[in-house]
Structure formats: structure tokens, C-alpha cells
């Protein structure tokens, strides 16, 4: 039957194509080739024989986009799958290189690695054999870009606990791109508690499942102290929080009906007895094209 | 744009009032 082969996938534009970092499911980070929706993937599949020959039932390359839910590892939900046959069943007697191309490929969602779900894109080469197939995958990362929102209203709200604490908070936008700056202020209307400090947290909420099986995983991405000490009525505290310092993804709502990733700003006031008073507000994050 | 938002000026009575 032959001793098998090594498979290598080489993109035509490997030398010039940008790479981007993404977390792997074991928490490490890796750099992968970066693609956008509509871009083509072209390259070559190099099959290097280990022995003198290799009998096979066919060689193909697939472009796959899939969602993996960690609690359901066996089931992968492929939302996009393109196949190209590289070789019909036969016998390889020498190492061979096959060109491939996938033109103007639709990539509707951004790559994502989360606590309970992963969305990935990859090229997969399969050499089908009688017993065990030889498979090689090459992961890619996809970013989804948005245009600047036409309407981007500020968030301004008054909240409080009667006779205790009233504030008016304002954030300059409701939609922020990933390198944006949250500019805001907190105005104190009534202060009758001993505040120790105030912070703004960025919370990521990953939602998987649906209906009664909905599961939310919250992660505090950032805690940013915006005030030290106790203000009195009439005090106005400025906020300036640079998002580029944090690992964020765009907001993802109901991706392929499988999961969502949303972001919240959590304004937290902590008093002298460590009691926490908070107000959470959803914001939309989006990815802006680089200049 | 990172410019601060405009803020209301605190009255002097509030500024120097004892914490409530």
C-alpha cells in the first residue's frame, strides 16, 4: 500500500500576506494567515512521499468554516465548506505538488476562540486511503470589518439608589472600534455613602446554547480605576479608556444561531466596607479596517 | 478623538460642603 506521505500546504501569497494572532483552545497564542470576506485562497499542496509509492483513493482540499461547542465536541457545525479534487484515485510514485484555488470565498464570520466555543476556518487536505486517511489542516484567521456606524449616539443615563447614591454617567459612543477610546464622565448628583474608589470594567459575555440550555460565560477583560477617594455632590470625574490596550473581539450576535459574544461596560463604585454598586451597559465593538 | 467631555461646574457650596 505504501508508507504514507507528508502534506504541506503553501499559499501563493505567504510572503506578503499579513498574519494575525489568535488564541488556541489551550490558551496559547498563535499567528495565522489573515483573510477577509471575499478574498481568494490560492496555493499549492505539496505531497512528499515517505516510501517508494503511495496508493490512494483520491486527494482533495477543502476550505472549511466551522463552529465547535466544547460541551459537544463530537459535533462540528460547518457553516461553510468548499471542496476541490486534486487527484483522482491512483498511485503516487514520486512527490507531487498540486495547485489549488478557491475564488472569492465567502467568510461571513470572524474567527473566534472562547471559553466554550470556537469558530475556525481552515484548509484541509485529505489523502483518502483504504485504511486510514492522511489528513493535514492549516488554520487561518478571518477578521470581519465594519464601516463607521452612521448613527453612533452617546450613552447618557442617570441611575441611583434612593437617598443614597445618584450619578449621571455618560460615554461618548455606543459603538466603539477595537482601537477606539472610551471618553466619558461620571457626575455625582447625590453621595451619601463613603466611596473608596470607582472603576470601569470591560466584561465579555459569551453565550452558547439556546432556550433552557443557554449558558453564559462572563469574563472581566479589564479593570480600570477611574477615581480614587470619595467625591461629594457636583463632582465630575473624567473617563478616558484606550481599548487598544486590551484583547477584544468585535461584538458577535447570534453567530449561525450558535453563540454570541457581547461586551459590557460595568461601572463599579466600591465603598469603605467593600460593598459594590454597579451599573452595566452594553456597548458594541467593531473592527475597523487598518489604514 | 480623546478630548474630555464638557462637565457641569460644581457650585462652591457643594465643593466645600461636608460629606453628606
Amino acid at each position, binding site marked *: 500500500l505504501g508508507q504514507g506521505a507528508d502534506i504541506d500546504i503553501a499559499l501563493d501569497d505567504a510572503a506578503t500576506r499579513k498574519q494575525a494572532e489568535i488564541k488556541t483552545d489551550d490558551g496559547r497564542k498563535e499567528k495565522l494567515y489573515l483573510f477577509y470576506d471575499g478574498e481568494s485562497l490560492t496555493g499549492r499542496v505539496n505531497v512528499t512521499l515517505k516510501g517508494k509509492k503511495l496508493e490512494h483513493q483520491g486527494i482533495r482540499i477543502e476550505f472549511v468554516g466551522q463552529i465547535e461547542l466544547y460541551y459537544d465536541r463530537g459535533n462540528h457545525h460547518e457553516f461553510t465548506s468548499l471542496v476541490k479534487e486534486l487527484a483522482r484515485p491512483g498511485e503516487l510514485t514520486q512527490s507531487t505538488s498540486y495547485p489549488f484555488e478557491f475564488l472569492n470565498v465567502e467568510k461571513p464570520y470572524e474567527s473566534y476562540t472562547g471559553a466554550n466555543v470556537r469558530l475556525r476556518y481552515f484548509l484541509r487536505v485529505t489523502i483518502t486511503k483504504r485504511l486510514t486517511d492522511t489528513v493535514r489542516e492549516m488554520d487561518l484567521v478571518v477578521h470581519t470589518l465594519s464601516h463607521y456606524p452612521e448613527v453612533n449616539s452617546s450613552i447618557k443615563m442617570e441611575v441611583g439608589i434612593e437617598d443614597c447614591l445618584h450619578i449621571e454617567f455618560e460615554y461618548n459612543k455606543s459603538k466603539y472600534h477595537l482601537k477606539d477610546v472610551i471618553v466619558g464622565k461620571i457626575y455625582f448628583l447625590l453621595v451619601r455613602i463613603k466611596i473608596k474608589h470607582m472603576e470601569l470594567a470591560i466584561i465579555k459575555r459569551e453565550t452558547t446554547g439556546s432556550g433552557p440550555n443557554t449558558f453564559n460565560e462572563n469574563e472581566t477583560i*479589564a*479593570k*480600570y*480605576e*477611574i*477615581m*480614587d*477617594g*470619595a*467625591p*461629594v455632590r457636583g*463632582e*465630575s*470625574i*473624567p473617563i*478616558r479608556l*484606550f481599548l487598544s*490596550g486590551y484583547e477584544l473581539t468585535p461584538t458577535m450576535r447570534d453567530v449561525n444561531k450558535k453563540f454570541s459574544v457581547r461586551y459590557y461596560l460595568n461601572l463599579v463604585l466600591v465603598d469603605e466596607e467593600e460593598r459594590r454598586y454597579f451599573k452595566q451597559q452594553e456597548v458594541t465593538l467593531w473592527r475597523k479596517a487598518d489604514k | 478623538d*480623546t478630548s*474630555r467631555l464638557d462637565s457641569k461646574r460644581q457650585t*462652591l*457650596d457643594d*465643593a*466645600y460642603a*461636608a*460629606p453628606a
Partner: protein
Amino acid sequence: QEKLLEEAQQVVKVQAFQMKRSLDKGKLMDGLKNASNMLGELRTSLLSPKGYYELYMSVCDELRHLEQYLLDEYQKGHKIADLYELVQYAGNIVPRLYLLITVGIVYIKAHQSSRKDIMKDLVEMCRGVQHPLRGLFLRNYLLQCTRNYLPDTEKDESDNPETAGGNIEDSIDFILLNFAEMNKLWVRMQHQGHSRDWEKREKERNELRILVGTNLVRLSQLETVDVERYKKDILPEVIEQVVSCRDTIAQEYLMECIIQVFPDEFHLQTLSMFLKACADLNTAVNVKNIIIAMIDRLALFACRDDTAGIPSDLKLFDIFSLQIAGIIEARSDMPTEDIVALQVSLINLALKCYQDRVDYIDKVLETTAAIFEKLKLEHLKYNSAVAKELQRLLKIPVDSYNNILTLLKLQHYVRVVEYLDYEGRKTISAYIINNAIDNNLPVPSQEQVDQILTLVAPLVK
């Protein structure tokens, strides 16, 4: 406290060493991280103000090294991208703002950005530190760093808005805002902690007064500030803060600070405003000392050879006389001896600045008598505080004129003497007679002799 301070200083020392090592190797991010760790010690709530001050001074010394490193880099042409943004990534506000001020100053010195915008941004962003002690020192750091870099010209010297340097108005606004915020924090300190520790807190607050006063010093160092600007833009704002804060320590200190740091020429033109404010100060404030300090200052100014003296159109005595009357009226619980002390200072002013104006002395005596009549006082006990002050008042013209005949011209002198008891009147009489004998002045007319004998009636009768 000693142990806590020592531990904190040790951390500062270690982090500063690592910061310098990182910067020497060109590792800016590491250096900033070390600096941030070092500045983290200034987040402490455990140190007394004195201890915090010592820690703060150590940290400032080390920050100068960072500032110099960054400035050298800019001056060599090594632009550090987005440094102002970079330091704002720091998660804790106290280290973040110290770093921001340090970088802001580097930007100003290296002309990297609009000086005016940076100054405004720094003084506003410091609002985030509302803790009184930490806020005071942070703003003091801001003031010290900007000390030689505040714009001091009528017009902005830059055409480019991106590197706008600002002008004197921007400097005044900057310092006044910083002053207002610092005074607010300083006054708020009295409310921190348990009421049983109030006295200890007031003592600690007193030790920190110079942090607030430095703002006024900085204002006085601006060369472009003339008397008009002082009158319109500076003094009203400062006085508004001082009066509104309603805090005894703050008011006493700041009013005296105003007198000390600003030139006498400014005081001459703003006397009414200043003295009116004295009437509105907290009842516990020793207004007498403030007014006397101002009078003494101006009296000294009048006597100096190197100045033009008091302008002839400025009726200094009238202004003081009127305003002091207003203050006495407004402050109904002012001790009587303080009222008399104010009259003493008025007489001193009259004698120093208007030697020929015997009528001014008489006016003071008339006012004193009127006050005593209103208060229905009589026969003040010899060793009482009021009597002592009154005797001081009565002796001044004697010592100043050394001429009993001039003393006779004071029509209200005898009236005031009558308010003393027998012992007091006897003492004053003896004082007058001894002065006359010492000066050996002949009394030319019988009428004058009669007047003298009436003056010293307690001895005669």
C-alpha cells in the same frame, strides 16, 4: 509609621533601580512598568501626611530620572510613538496620573504638542483623585513640574494650533483651577476619620498648608500679571474660594499668604476688595491679625526709599478706616481687645504714612470712643485685656509726637482716657507727664496749662 515608611521606601528604591536599568538598556516599556510599580506606593492609605510627604519626595526624585531619559530621547530625535496614550494604559489612577504629568512635561519641553492643551488636560484629569492627601500631592507634583513652563506672554507665540503655547490667561486659569481643587481637598481633610481625632487632623492639615499656598506663589511669579489682571482675574477668584470654603485654618493661612506673596502695589489697588472679604470670614478667624499684617506691610512700603510710596490719590487711611468699621459691624462677636488692636494698627498707619495728619489720629480716638459708648463700657479694669490694649493705643501718640502741645490738639483723647479705671487713667497721666518732662518743652500759654492739667486730672485731683 516608621516601619511602614521604611518598607515603602525600600520598594521605591528597588523599583527605581530596575527602572534605571531598563532605561539604560533602552527597554522603555519595562522602565515604565517599573515606574508604575514604584508609583503604586503612593496609593497607600497607611502613612501619615508627614510620612507620605517623605515617600512622595523620594518618588519625585526618581521620576526626574525618567523625565530626563524621555526628554533626551526626544531631543536625540527618537520619537516614542503615542507615549501620552501609552502611559494611560496603567490600570491604577495614581501611578497613571503621575506618569501622565511626567510625559506631559516632556511633551511641553520637547515641543511635541500644544502646551495649552496639555496643561488643560492634566489639570482636568487630576479630578480623578478625590482622596484628599493623595490628590493634594498629585496636584503639587503637577504644579512643581510646570513651574518654569507656564506661558507668560500676552499673546500665544505660536501660529500653529497644534503646538499652541497658550498665553498668560491660560496660565492663570490653570493655576486657579488647580488652587480651587487643592483647597477643596485640603478643607475636606477635616471630615476624614473619627471626630475624636479632629484636633490631630487639624494639626496635620496645618502642616500641608504650603501645598495649597504654592499655587498663589506661582501666580505671583507670572511676570505678565499686572495690577489690572490681578484685580480682575486673580484676586476675586482667590477670595471667592477663600470665603466660600468657610474653614478657619484655610482662611487664616490663605489671607496671610495673599498679603505675603503679592506685591504691595497690587494690595494698594485692591484694598477694599481684600478688606471686604475679611468681614465675610469664618467667625473663628483672627481677622485682626490679617488686617494688621496688611497695614504693617503697607506702612513699611510707604517708608521705603526705593518706591514711590502711597499714591496721593489713594486715601489709604480712609479706606482702612471705613472697611475696619464695616468689619467690626459685621463681626459682632469680635473681642473688644481685638477691636482696640485694630484701632492701634490704624493709628500706626496714620503716623507712618500721614505724619502731619493729626486729624487722622483724632478720628481713630473718636471711633474708639463711639465703639465703647455703643458697647456701654466704662471704667475698664486696669489689668484686663481691653484696658491693656487701650493703654497701648493712648501711649502711641505720646511716643510719636513727643510733644504735649500736639497731644492737646487731639480733641477726643481725654474722652478715650475716661474709659479706663482710676489706675489706668493714673498710669496714662504719669506717662504723659514723664514724656513732657523728658522732652523739656515749654508750655507757652495759660490755656494750654489748664488743658494739660485737665488731661492729667487723675494725678491732680
